[in-house]
Structures are given as structure tokens and as C-alpha cells.
């Protein structure tokens, strides 16, 4: 154990974190499939390395925004397992007291300022948090995760322009999984790589393998240093694969079995595992990390399931600062 190189040892907690997200999503899938989770949860299975690799380079006061496929980012930024799962279950003990759900997770204390159900909708908000940090003289940066599908939205281009113009400390992290909802990237755009959109705005950018954690860690380290150093925005494009459907229950008839099998070969957890074994880590040690996470997640999920439901009497709380002052309803 002691003969591992430091850079190898450093990867072990990240390996565990990948599993933490993977197990979390597996429980979301299981409970959504049997109707215990309402609504439309979207799984990040297969894209865990981007969440873990980028968030590993952030400080707590940095702000993170994500998309509808955001469970992994929220956990990687430090949100509590049980409170996150409780929110997805719609419990009072959830991060947002059951008012947000899977697509609107917020943990302000950890800098998780929000997921959104509108594709591309959070890009300008992230620029806004970056502007606030800049205006208030804080050294925080703002990060926004989005899929390649978001580049079809006008607000993506508006935000890149604005962020470059104002030299905002914002890191745009694109998870290019090659498929937007149910349709492949080729049918969405002639532009193959999202990083190309950064060029005309002179935004620093890089396209990396988003399924190999050491690569993501290195890419994110460089990007975060640029942004925190006051050099303006950065666009980090992480090539990845969405191993799950668009939402839980999507039969994925638009993808062949062969294509899915090929993607599974590139699973970021398996790839990191193989890498760690090559670097001298015992397989048993990796299995133990995996199993520890399985138990931890399972215990958190069970506690969340047993937690009290929301109180119907509180339904009008938080529409405004005070429900009494704003007696909107006659």
C-alpha cells in the first residue's frame, strides 16, 4: 500500500466518489421505476468523472450551476447524500424542503446554486454569480455544467459574448455526450466540438476526454487556475457518454445495442479502476471502496425514505419572503 505513487493515492478518494454518484443514480433509477420517485429524474450515469474531476478543483465558496442532469454535480460539490436524496423523494428534510426535486436542487451553503429544467437556462445565471464575485472583490469563481444540446439555445451564445466582454470569472463545462435528449449531435449542429464556439469570443478553451478522471482533473485544474487568476472565462469541453436514457423510463430505441456496449467499455469508473490496478493498486482495495460507497449510499437512501413527508400546511411558504405580507389570494 505504501509503495503507491502520491498521484495514484490521490485518485483513490475520487474513485470512491465516482461510485458514490453511480450508486446514488442506481437508487434513483430503481425507485423511480417503481413509482416511489415522482416526476422526471434524469440520470448522470456514465458522466461521473466530469462532476468529480471539476468539483475537486473548487473551493466551497465557488458557485456551481447545473442542468436537468445534475445529481452528480450537486453531490460532487459537497451536498449531503441524504438531504439530496430526500429532495428527490420530495421529503421535508430534502435540500429544498421538497419544493425543488430532481431538476431544481440547491444547496446554497455548499455553493450549489441550482439546477434547471430549461436547457441552457442556467448559463447566464452562472455569469451573474461571476459578476457578483467580480464586483464584490471575492476570489470565487462560478461554474456551470451543461450538455451539448444547450449550445442550440441563443442564450448560450449571448452568455459567452457577455462573459468574454466583461472578463467574468466563469468556467463553462460542457458535457458533450453526443446526444441531446433523443437525437444525436450530428442532427443538432454542423459544429462537432462545442469548444469551437469559444473561439470567436477569444475564450480560452480545451476539449478533453471526460471519461478519464486524471485527464479531467488536469484539465479542470488548468481551467480553474486561469479563471481564478483573473483571465476571464474558460470553456472546458468534456467528451463523455450518457449510459442511461434521457430520463428514467426512456427505452432508448434511438441507440443500438452495439453503440451502448461500446460506451460501457469507456465507463469512467472501469477506466479509472483499470488505471489504478496498472499503477499497483490491489483490486480488493478498489472493491472495498466500491462496497463502502454502496453501503453509505444505501443507508442514506433508506434514511431519506423513512424521513417525514412535507407538511401540506407549508405549501405557501417561500413564494415570497412572508406569506402574510403578500396575501395575494383573496
Amino acid at each position: 500500500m505504501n509503495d503507491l505513487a502520491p498521484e495514484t493515492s490521490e485518485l483513490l478518494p475520487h474513485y470512491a466518489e465516482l461510485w458514490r454518484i453511480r450508486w446514488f443514480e442506481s437508487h434513483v433509477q430503481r425507485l423511480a421505476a417503481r413509482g416511489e420517485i415522482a416526476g422526471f429524474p434524469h440520470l448522470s450515469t456514465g458522466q461521473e468523472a466530469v462532476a468529480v474531476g471539476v468539483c475537486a478543483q473548487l473551493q466551497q465558496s465557488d458557485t456551481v450551476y447545473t442542468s436537468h442532469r445534475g445529481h452528480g454535480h450537486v453531490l460532487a460539490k459537497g451536498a449531503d447524500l441524504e438531504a439530496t436524496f430526500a429532495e428527490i423523494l420530495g421529503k421535508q428534510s430534502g435540500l429544498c424542503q421538497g419544493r425543488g426535486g430532481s431538476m431544481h436542487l440547491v444547496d446554497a451553503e455548499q455553493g450549489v446554486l441550482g439546477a434547471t429544467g430549461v436547457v441552457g437556462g442556467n448559463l447566464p445565471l452562472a455569469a451573474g454569480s461571476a459578476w457578483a464575485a467580480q464586483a464584490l472583490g471575492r476570489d470565487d469563481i462560478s461554474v456551470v455544467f451543461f450538455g451539448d444540446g444547450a449550445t442550440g439555445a441563443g442564450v448560450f451564445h449571448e452568455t459567452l459574448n457577455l462573459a468574454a466582454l466583461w472578463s467574468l470569472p466563469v468556467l463553462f463545462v460542457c458535457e458533450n455526450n453526443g446526444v441531446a435528449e433523443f437525437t444525436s449531435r450530428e442532427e443538432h449542429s454542423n459544429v462537432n466540438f462545442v469548444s469551437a464556439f469559444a473561439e470567436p469570443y477569444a475564450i480560452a478553451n480545451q476539449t478533453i476526454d471526460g471519461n478519464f478522471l486524471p485527464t479531467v482533473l488536469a484539465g479542470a485544474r488548468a481551467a480553474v487556475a486561469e479563471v481564478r487568476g483573473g483571465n476571464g472565462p474558460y470553456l472546458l469541453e468534456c467528451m463523455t457518454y450518457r449510459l442511461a436514457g434521457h430520463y428514467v423510463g426512456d427505452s432508448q430505441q434511438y441507440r443500438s445495442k452495439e453503440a451502448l456496449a461500446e460506451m460501457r467499455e469507456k465507463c469512467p469508473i472501469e477506466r479509472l479502476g483499470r488505471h489504478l490496478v496498472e499503477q499497483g493498486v490491489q483490486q480488493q482495495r478498489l472493491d472495498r471502496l466500491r462496497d463502502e460507497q454502496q453501503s453509505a449510499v444505501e443507508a442514506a437512501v433508506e434514511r431519506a425514505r423513512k424521513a417525514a413527508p412535507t407538511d401540506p400546511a407549508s405549501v405557501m411558504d417561500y413564494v415570497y419572503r412572508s406569506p402574510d405580507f403578500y396575501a395575494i389570494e383573496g
Partner: protein
Amino acid sequence: MAEQSFIEILRRALDEELERDPTVHLLGEDVAAGGAFGVTRGLADKHGATRVRNTPISEAAITGLTTGAAISGLKPVLEIMFIDFATLALDTLLNQSAKYRYMSGGQLAVPMVVRTQAGAAGGAAAQHSQSLEAWFTHIPGLVVVAPSTPGEAYGLLKSAIRLGEPVLYIEHKRLYTMRETLDESAALPVIGEARIAREGEDVTLITYSAMVNDALNAASELEALGISVEVIDLRSLLPLDMDTIARSVCKTHRVVVAHEAVTNGGFGAEIAARIGEQLFDELDAPVTRIGCRFAPIPFAPELERTLLPGTPDLISGIRRLMNLAAD
């Protein structure tokens, strides 16, 4: 203190709030140069180009940026040049700004003001003249205010900036040249409280924004005919001050609701419905609605004048109502 125009008084309120609170920032298209109507003229020189900041013509992004800044410690005041362009900002206003406090279970507040300018005057035509306030009153979490005079604009803008909620602040372009001497001693208005602009006994005329002035003109003319009109200036549409409305209706028993926006689906329908639900027994006649006919705003000045409701429409509406009411 000398008389000042609506624009000058808005500028003064913004200037004082910038002075008072370092987290207040102004942004929008051309605002550093004063904005399309000169409201912010000189403020960038005084407070710096980072606090009074020009933006690209990107309504969606700048409204999102404003929202993100608001949840991260600033109190931004965004200018959307015409309410007609708020359509481009609607995703953020509807799906983010208005819902953030609720969706986050109270973790985050959105202390932002969107100043915009609405209404028809001077042939601005179909895409620069609309009164779209009713759309926004349908959004839980938003606050919608529409001042009627320079003095009201001053207090309401300051209160809006300090409120700690996302506020849509609607200025009517017809009011921009209106002049008034600011009452220095007046307390800032509480957002959500209407005001009685003129007391009366026979009929309650409920309105807001520029039409308050048409209503006061109508009330003066009707007084000569022996009809005493009470004019309510709502000031805030969301929240709506039903207490002030109810007190007046219980006194007059007759109601006219008026606005420049098209009558169909307008905010007047909401007020009329609430009065019908809550005060039916108080009414001596059905609630009368006066608004714009169901057409886009035309360019030609005579067509614009024909379409828009004004003092004569209020007078004839109230006279019809008075004849209808059985005493």
C-alpha cells in the same frame, strides 16, 4: 426644491440608492450613456462604469445575469428598454427569478428590479407600445408595480430596490415628461399598498400607471355633472391591495376598472372577478371594465388615438354605469 420631470426623479432615486448601498448596480442596454430615455444619464460618471454598466443587446442573457448576481450578493437594477422586449427575458423571469426562493425552499432570495417602459404614445407602433403587465401578474413569486406620477415613481423605485424580491417596475412613456416637486418628507411607500388618489362618494374608479391621470381628469369633469368619483391608484398590481378596494366599494357600491392594456384577459378582469366574489352584495351594478380594444397598437397617430382608452372613455363609462345603477 424645484419641479423635476419623471425621468429626473427616477434618476435621483437611482442615484441615491447607488449612494446608499454599494451592492446596488445598474445595467442594461446603453445605460452608461443614459439609456434610451436618459434616465441614467450621468450616473456612470458619478458611480463608475462597473456599477452603471452597458450590456450587449441580449435580453435573455442580461436578465439571467441579473438573477444570478442577485442570488450572489448584488442588488441589480436592470433596464429593459421596452416591455415589448421583455418577451426575450421571459424565460428567466418566469422560470428562475420568480421561483428561486420557492424552488430552493427559502435558501435563496432574488433582490432584483427590472425597470421597463411600456404603453402607447407618439406613434411608437405595434412593437414599442404595448401594455403587457397582466402576463406578469400571473407569475407567483414576482412583484409588479406601475407608478402614476413622478413622486410615486421615486418612492416606489426606492422601495422596490430595498424589497428583496424580484420586481418588475413598469414606467409609462407618457409619464416621462410629467413634472412635479418632490415631497421630501414623504415616507417611502409600502409595496402592496394602493393609494386613494382622489376621494369620492358615488363610484370607485380603479386604475394604475398613466391612466391614473386620465382618471383624475375624468373625476374633475364628472364633478361638474354632480358625480363624485373616488380614484384608486393601485401602484402595485402584484400584490394587490384588496383592502383598499373593498373599503372604497363598500362606500360607493359602483366600480369601474380601467387600464390601457386590452380589456380581454387584462388585469381588470382579475379585479372585477375578485370584487364579484368578495363584494357581490355591496354592488349596485355590474363592474365596468374599460381598456383597449382588441387590436395591436397602430402607427398612424389618429389610429393610435382612436384605439387607446382615455379620459372621454372613462367619463362615458362612468355615466353609463350611473344610469344603470338603481338608486
